[in-house]
């Protein structure tokens, strides 16, 4: 930035100068900017200040313009989840005997424990909502044709990882509702031939109960494996986005200049303020209850799978009389595989935007109808 280069010219070494002699600051900035905080390309061979002033003078892609910075909320929410999750991990004990009691202790004895858990919960729901909305938007805008195939694949995989993050998290406190809805979800996984039972055996859960081995594996997935995967996918998603743009119209570019980056930062700051406000309001006003502890020997009736799995659950229940369970599972798996590989088979001549939006609506309505049915039979 000009101020910084100015200070350098004046001969007063700054902390940044000190650091840049020891670290590849531009590369670090470039890596961080791949998460969407800075949409322009930075030349990693140049010192940070120089690279930034050069990037600021280049035209910016249109997707960096308001309100498309919304996608940034993904990384913001992931950060909120990391922070609140890490704080809870300081006290949480992942054994069937202590999981419930330690969660209770977090809520009762740790300062702001209740608020942190509520933020973690609502942050997760918001994250899933944003990830789903992003996939729906890419589908409706048909933003998966060449060269944006990977943009789609990464978005769908990110959504899938998001589901698993929520699912593994919901079993951890060993509350009755969390435990049994996780069991319901595992029943869906189990219905997929070969892959389902194999996954469950890796998890140490056999689809009817979550054992002590499964709990520690769920914890490992929830606290280490899946978050790393999510961070990697967000990086891949944003770097693809930076390379290929979101649509043909991304050739519209912002007027170059230093004010572009300031405008972008102002947008981000407003967005984060609103997001944080909504999240904390939900956490304070719509507190989720702390249910009684789970008893693996007593099935609690009326608990279905998590909301995002209600549609596959509804499908399995709906076809239960027509198809054997494994066939229903196979259909689900093939449906998912087709969905991920959408760019490879939907190569029809460009549809109108209305048509794509209509298809997306039909898909959404079908999904909602199956979810409604799933919720009713649960």
């Amino acid at each position, binding site marked *: 930035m000009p101020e910084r280069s100015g200070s350098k010219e004046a001969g007063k070494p700054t902390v940044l100068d000190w650091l840049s002699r020891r670290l590849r600051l531009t590369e670090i900035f470039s890596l961080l900017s791949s998460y969407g905080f800075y949409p322009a390309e930075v030349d990693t061979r140049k010192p940070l200040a120089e690279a930034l002033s050069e990037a600021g003078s280049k035209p910016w892609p249109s997707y960096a313009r308001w309100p498309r910075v919304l996608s940034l909320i993904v990384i913001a929410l992931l950060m909120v989840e990391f922070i609140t999750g890490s704080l809870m991990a300081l006290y949480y004990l992942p054994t069937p005997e202590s999981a419930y009691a330690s969660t209770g202790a977090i809520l009762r004895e740790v300062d702001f424990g209740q608020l942190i858990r509520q933020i973690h919960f609502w942050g997760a729901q918001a994250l899933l909502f944003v990830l789903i909305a992003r996939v729906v938007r890419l589908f409706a805008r048909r933003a998966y044709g060449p060269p944006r195939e990977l943009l789609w694949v990464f978005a769908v995989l990110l959504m899938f990882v998001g589901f698993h993050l929520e699912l593994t998290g919901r079993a951890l406190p060993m509350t009755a509702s969390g435990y049994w809805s996780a069991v319901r979800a595992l029943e869906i996984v189990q219905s997929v031939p070969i892959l389902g039972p194999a996954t469950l055996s890796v998890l140490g859960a056999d689809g009817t109960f979550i054992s002590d081995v499964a709990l520690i594996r769920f914890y490992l997935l929830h606290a280490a494996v899946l978050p790393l995967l999510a961070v990697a996918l967000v990086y891949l998603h944003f770097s693809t986005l930076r390379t290929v743009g979101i649509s043909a119209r991304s050739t519209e570019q912002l007027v170059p200049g230093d004010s572009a980056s300031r405008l972008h930062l*102002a947008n981000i700051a407003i967005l984060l*303020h609103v997001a944080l406000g909504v999240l904390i309001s939900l956490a*304070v006003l719509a507190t989720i209850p702390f249910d009684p502890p789970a008893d693996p020997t007593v099935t609690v009736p009326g608990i279905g799978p998590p909301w995002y799995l209600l549609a596959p659950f509804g499908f399995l229940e709906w076809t239960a009389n027509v198809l054997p369970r494994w066939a229903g599972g196979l259909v689900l798996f093939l449906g998912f595989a087709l969905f991920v590989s959408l760019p490879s088979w939907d190569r029809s001549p460009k549809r109108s935007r209305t048509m794509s939006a209509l298809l997306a609506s039909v898909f959404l309505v079908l999904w909602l109808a199956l979810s409604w049915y799933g919720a009713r039979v649960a």
Partner: protein
Amino acid sequence: MMRPFAPAVVVCLTLFVALPAAAEERESCGTCHPASRVDFEGSIHAREEVTCSDCHGGDPRTLDVDEAHRGKFRSWKDRLTTPLLCAECHSDLERMRAYNLPGDQLAVYQTSQHGRSNAAGDRRAAVCTDCHGGHGILAPGDPASSVHPRNIQETCAACHADPDLTAAYDLDSSVVDDYRNSVHGRALLDEGNAAAPDCTSCHGVHGAAPPGFGDVDKVCGFCHAQTRRAFREGPHYQAMLAADLPECASCHSNHAISQFEADALSGICLECHGEDSTQAQLGRVFQTSISAAAAELDRAAELVQQGERRALDVEDYLARLEGARTALTEAPPASHAVLREPVEELTRRARSIGEEVQRELYAKLNRRPAHIGLAFFWFYLLTAIAILWVYRRQLERER
């Protein structure tokens, strides 16, 4: 060459002679009575090595029908002598000592209604085998036994729910059904509460007889000791004895005893006392104070549940409510003394604990600091957003 075979020959010869001898030692009754033998082999008697001939006599070693049924053979066909035959062992105190069984069952039986009828020559009166079974007798603690506490009502029902048989003795055939639907029957049969009474708990086991007038409160008081104490202190006890009314059963009935319901309390008083009487008024006071305390405790319990779901520490409240419930549980027994103070004291204690728990939980559940904090947070957010928005507009104008 023959020498190695010599021991084998000796063994074979020995077996040839010894096996039939061993077979003779075994009882051969089961050859002609296979069903009885199967029944008997599962019984407690078979396990304790009692044999057919111990009860039936005869010669069990022969397969000849006449030989087998000769000598001291007893067919047990005469129901009048059945108790005496069982008593041959069961009144033998030395023999019973090892099993820790009482040796006075025959004597006790003879005091019972069944025993008296039997002694009077009534062949329909229940004898040992009617309740315990014949060959397949099981220990009373065995869940499959006909005299196990959970099964005894069915065993009694075999005669006492038989309309023809009960009519012959001028008895009520609905007693077993009444019991099954009573608070006692449901507790034992539906809820599996082993402490709940079965037929024998009130009527006795071998000495089964209906409790006589003047004894009802003793029978009920065996479990309901506090109620009995209060009842004896109150005016009803002497009055009922004078009027030849069965004490507890006058208000509660005998077999169809229902669960205590506070709301029905004052109605019971009206069965004998006038609506405007002081007794009926007292009944209404009891009803109101018990119902009010129960409602207060229910509300408190609901709040405790809400607190639990909000992860509040409710252990202390649960303990206090338990204490309050104990006080409230003591109120209906205390009401049998028909005195206002003890009942009001107990219900007041229960109610005040309930109110206290509610007050404290209300304060915790509706704590406002979080909401006030949220309001301050939004004040900061809106100010920050406004400043950012103005800054943004400025930047856009510059462009």
